[in-house]
């Protein structure tokens, strides 16, 4: 189970990166990175997962005393939330940049934005 999730995550990352590194269109690049980010998030969650346990919320099913034996690791859950939000922030920013770049040149081909070089 964990292995599958993790493999999925890694594959998503590789796919995302492949897309990001080969597509010329900026929007596609952004989307590809989103895919890769998703892959990372899946891995984060997968690392926290423990077989046969439940979500780290104390309720009737999980009394405080037994919590340590019943819940999965809560830390990656917390981390993934942060990671998602940050990923979102960067994606938004890239989109806004992409918009301005398009406005300037009328193209979204990344290879056209290479005046700064060497």
């Amino acid at each position, binding site marked *: 189970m964990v292995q599958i999730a993790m493999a999925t995550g890694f594959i998503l990352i590789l796919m995302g990166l492949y897309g990001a590194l080969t597509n010329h269109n900026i929007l596609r690049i952004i989307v590809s990175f989103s895919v890769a980010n998703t892959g990372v998030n899946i891995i984060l969650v997968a690392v926290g997962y423990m077989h046969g346990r439940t979500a780290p919320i104390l309720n009737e099913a999980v009394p405080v005393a037994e919590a340590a034996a019943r819940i999965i690791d809560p830390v990656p859950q917390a981390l993934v939330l942060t990671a998602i939000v940050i*990923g979102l922030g960067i994606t938004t920013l890239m989109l806004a940049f992409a918009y301005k770049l398009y406005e300037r040149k009328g193209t979204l081909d990344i290879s056209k934005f290479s005046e700064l070089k060497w």
Partner: protein
Amino acid sequence: MVNVIFIIVIGLGAAFLLGLLRENWRNAAYALTIGSLVSMAWIAARWLLFFAVEGGTTVEVFTAGTEPPFAINLRMGIAEAVLLLVVIFSGLLSAVYMSKSLFRLGGRAMSVLLVFIMALCGIILTRDIFNLFVFFELAVIATAGLLLISENKQALSAGFKYLIISQLVSVFLLIGIIFTYHVSGSLNIDTIAGVSLDTMKGIGSLAFFFMLIAVLTEAKPFPANGWALDIYESAHPAFSAMFSAAMAGSAAVYAVDKLLLIGGQQWLPVVTAIGLLSFVAANLLALAQTNDRRTLGYSSVGQVGLILAVIGQRDILGDNYLFIAGGILLSHAVAKAGLYWISGLIGQRNLTDWAVLRRHPMLILSFVSFIAMLSGLPPFPSFYAKWDLVMILATENRLWILAFILLGSLLEASYLFRWFGYILKRETPRQEKNEVENKSPLLSLVPHKLLVIFSALATSWGLAYLWGELSAYDNLFYALPLLFALSFLLLEWVSVWIKNTLAIAGMVAYFVISYPLYDPLQIIFAAIFLLGGAVILLASYHVHGRRIGFYPSAMLMFAGLAMLVVAEDSFHFFAAWEFLTIGSYFMILRGKNSEPHALSYIIFSLGGAFLILTGFALAAQGVVLFNLGSLAHVAAPIAPWVFLLLAIGFMTKTAAIGLHIWLPGAHAEAETDVSPMVSGILLKAGLFGLMVLLMNMGKQQLYGIELTYVMLWIGALTAFLGNLMAVFQEDAKRLLAYSSIGQMGYALFGLALMNQLGWLMALMFVINHYIYKSMLFLSVGGVAKRTGTRDMYKMGGLIAMMPLSFIAVLIGIIAVSGVPPLSGFGGRWIFYNAILSSEYRLPMMLIFISGPIAFLYLFRLIHTIFLGQLKDDHRQIKEAPFWIMLPQMIYVAALMVFAVVPGLLLRHVDAYLSPFFAESAARGGLNWQGLTITSDYGYWSPIPIMVIIAIIFALLFAWLVFVNRKAQKVKQFNIVYSAERPFRPETTHFAWNFFAPYRKAMGFLIQPFVTRFWETLTELLHTIADLFRRFYTGNGQTYAIQLLAFVVVVYLFRVEF
């Protein structure tokens, strides 16, 4: 003590508060921004005070009322305090600097700035790896935002490239973090570091690798740094200052440092390798740059690489770690920020456009201080740091690392000083009239921007003082000569007359004060350096006005020389060496066309200095204050290497053949009174070094080759080729310069003979060469000043116009050529006696042949300038100015005195030297009894020689005068000329290519092989640089691929380790 968390709280709170302010309350917003930055700075400063002065210890700050590792904690120690100050101050000053842009963009931009600074502080403070990630992302996003401040349209694409990279980085970092968490069960750096090493193997080490590489990427390592260069090039300079000084130079490297606690020792080599590669490669590629900000970007990458390399050497640095890393880091931060701030004043982006700074001494001083800081020159912190670093590396036998660091430093210094040459020497760009409207002005001197730059300047000197205090050695600022030299910076506004008088008085007074401390050898050198310098300075009275920049540089050189003579340990020796190098470089650069020559001078000198540094470091083997006398006790396997390094280093200064190409241009193009200083005085510093070296280390063998024997050959070759090249010069000052090379060859040869007479001869050369070369340079300089050219064939017949100069040259050339009765003969006489007692014969041949060759160029010098046909343009010429003539006349007198009573000086030295050669098989020194000087082989009595010759001469002269008492001087063209009269002197003055037949016969020997070698080398470096920088295609995607490749390749290498 204010809780450290308030630094973050204030940053954040102010950022949020800014959102509340109305759009048009910009003043309030700006005041809030500055206010919060100031209070953040105050907190950091207070803590620094606590740690540094009050002796406080590191403090842990918990959040959420829970102890780590269960909640995030921050740590405040002295390193953090310093870095926070750097970060916040760079932010504060940049905020002041770009106030106009911030006003334009409003509160949002200010809050982004605040968040940026806050995030960097967070990176420094936090002890939690995930928190580190969050702060990094904040910094990344804020960077993208701050790029928009730039007026450069390309900043947008640079920002986008950076975002792409940061996506990759965050992927790597997160993977690394989560698996690290998995194996260690914690996110707290210290807890993870405490976990047993076994867990960090396998997947743990892989996870760590991902974290490390991600954080390293933020430090912009070569080659995964194209995006960073684009940012540096396009961003607002004030942001680049922060980006370089605070983000890469402080926060990112400190994050690496923290992470290495987890990875442990085994990862240090990786960081070292990446750092060194960046340092060398970035500085190499920078050679081919023309854009100023991009150049600074490359330099930034390089410096951060150096800091990384230092971090990678942490295992051996011990207690010095903070001192060394801090010295380099702070130097980089202040200097780079300062340079970026200066670049903001300048309207155009080519390096040569910086020439607009020329009229602004304070800005030039700033620029110089900054590049000196970057190059690791004294008295700046990077100098102390580099010194300690090199010492330790040599002790620990990490010589490759040492070599790469020095190579990178040399490359960096080359383009920085080349740039400085542009500033002083290139044509000031002119604003086209029709372009005025749509282009920014060439130089905009905005008061608040200047304030920012000058505060960086003040900081740089403050740090220099501080590091002097912290170092294990004396603070260089307490050296009287240096203070004296620096005080001339404050006197720049007064006239030459006063400054010159002060300078002369100071030098003479210092000599008098120190006189009792000198031993005889030191007296000779000190007298030449200080008194000799004072005599040459007399000539400087001929300049009017204020002569800005001359006195600080000249005095810096003399301060270095004065300190060199009395230096007892390697540190002071080296510091003095650097001072005199820098001072003389500035002086040489003052010449009209001296830009390329001054550059090659400084590059060769620094290269030589690095060799010396390495030599000392190898010799010291960790001893903190390494006494120069202890060179004698250096153990066998390294002793010859130490000798080799030091000898080559010193021979660079004496312009031994192969390392000589800097000299002719540098000496020839310098100003009239500078040429004698650098030729007559400065060259002796190299000889002094060699004397110290040889006196202590004696003969050394490397692979069975006697090194002094090699030196003997080098000296002979130098004497021969130097003289030969002098023969074919058309330019009078170049001729003298080549002659200096030859003369130094003689002196080198004498030293390498390693017997008492050889040394005595070398000293004789030291004195003689000082006198006659200073005199000749002054005369020729005076003539060049009057005629407006240095090409000898354009002169001629000047004897009638400038008789005193003629006399000086005449006496000078008789002395140089060694013809009796003048003092040059003494040198030759001692020389013959010296070689008779030496067992080496073959190299003498070259010396024999070079003696007569000297006649050729000397005759040419006097003939083509003063004799022959006077040119029509020169008929109204006057004698050289009084102040230029005065020292020459002093020299004439000195030559006469020295010719008659050489024993006055030499006998003491002779007595002083004899103990050093007591054990050698060769027989002792000279016998100075009575009027005759006797050696084991022959004898010489200067006074009878002088008297006999004078009497014969006077009698014949009197007779001739008596006989021809009615003779009249005929007109210029009254000569036997095939029954025709030449009416133009040009056709009759046989001067150009004077020794044509000689060139036919011997010209094959002076093919410019050496010049070609160095030129090819330079060209090769530039070609490589130009080729490899194309690697940065400008395509954001390519940069990402490069980063990916970097990650994979580094891992593969890591596996290899």
